[in-house]
């Protein structure tokens, strides 16, 4: 049996704005993916530990409070430290254009801002993992 894509959706840092992450999680569920949702106020350490124990294919990080540079960078560092290879990481939330470039340099494949459709996120994941 071919397993569905497994995705972790998490919010890093002190950010309680959960609606967007939950909408994406449900949208990816509707796109046939298995989505582990770990909710708000995760530390980067928690996120990476969860991704490893769950053996996910994809990590989606959400931030709307401005902490994305510090938090997401730490996630990428920890993934490297744990020698996790081939993990697709994407992000979403309120993230300035300048930071989008920096995040992509860190290895975050795509950043979805306000107005992004679920379909575009699902398509991005499916294409990147194919």
């Amino acid at each position: 049996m071919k397993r569905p894509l497994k995705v972790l959706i998490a919010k890093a840092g002190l950010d309680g704005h959960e609606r967007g992450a939950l909408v994406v999680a449900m949208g990816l569920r509707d796109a046939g993916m298995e989505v582990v949702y770990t909710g708000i106020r995760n530390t980067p350490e928690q996120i990476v530990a969860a991704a490893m124990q769950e053996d996910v294919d994809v990590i989606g990080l959400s931030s709307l409070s401005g902490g994305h540079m510090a938090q997401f960078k730490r996630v990428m560092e920890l993934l490297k430290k744990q020698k996790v290879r081939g993990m697709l990481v994407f992000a979403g939330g309120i993230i300035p254009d300048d930071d989008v470039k920096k995040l992509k340099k860190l290895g975050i494949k795509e950043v979805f801002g306000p107005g992004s459709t679920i379909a575009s996120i699902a398509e991005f994941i499916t294409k990147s993992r194919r």
Partner: protein
Amino acid sequence: MKMRGNELTKLVTRLESGEPLPTELYRRTGNARILGITGPPGVGKSSLIDRLIDNLRRQHKTVGVIAIDPTSPISGGALLGDRLRMQRHSEDEGVFIRSLATRHHHGGVTDSTPQIIHALDAAGFDIVIVETVGTGQDEVEVAEVADTVVVVLMPELGDEIQRAKSGLMEIADILVINKADLFNARAPATGPQYSALKWERPTIHTSAKTGEGITTLCGAMDLHHAYLVHSGELAERRERAVRAEVTRLLQSRVSASILCALEGPQAQTILTDVAKRKLDPYDAVEKLTTEILGSNKRSSKHVTTSTRGQAAKRRKTGR
């Protein structure tokens, strides 16, 4: 732990996809205590497990958790939201949590649950907790795999007639009324009592929110384990678990061979005869049983190529 975290997580993924556990690992199982936690959706099973993990870790016991949520019958996807409630020990190496989607298996657990329990057992976890999907009255498969079944309910879920019904209520070794902080639920809770011969099922009030009753629950689970050991029932239950697991594997292999046999030309003739009303369905089954499944040894051997063989093939072709 007898297995590195990364090794275990990849192993579990393979088992989840239907591959069998390597024999040498199965030989190392039988040491973990298996707890089943079941009950309707939203009663607080995951939050309660978060508390249990905390309590068990204080006793220096390592804990593996299998947390199951339903697969969507519409999209085939799933939202796995149990782990979210179990973050108290999220960076603790003595705790391993894996979320699973049912992938259309009914009964409250997944096809792969027995094998994944073995994997966590072989990896050296002292306690393996299986959290079922939010269950109804009839999803009782966890009783086939667990040594101790804890059924979690909450106040106001029904009267004594509900309690008297078959199914879920019958499989409880321990009954928990969680969210006891609500509705001022204090009425008849009973403590666990046992002699070596008889287990009196306790009702325990807990609140995963405040932590109330968790120590009592852990005590009851220990007591139940002691009862199982002293009464000899543990051995019986484990034997039942083995029988159930082998039966299911056998059933799935036999049903695969039936489906395969039905593809053949002989079967097609029989089915056509049923459609023309020359045979009735029972006659057809009789004929199929003797003519195809019974006599055609070569074809049945062919279609029942071991699951191990199929799994190896799957592994080669990727996920």
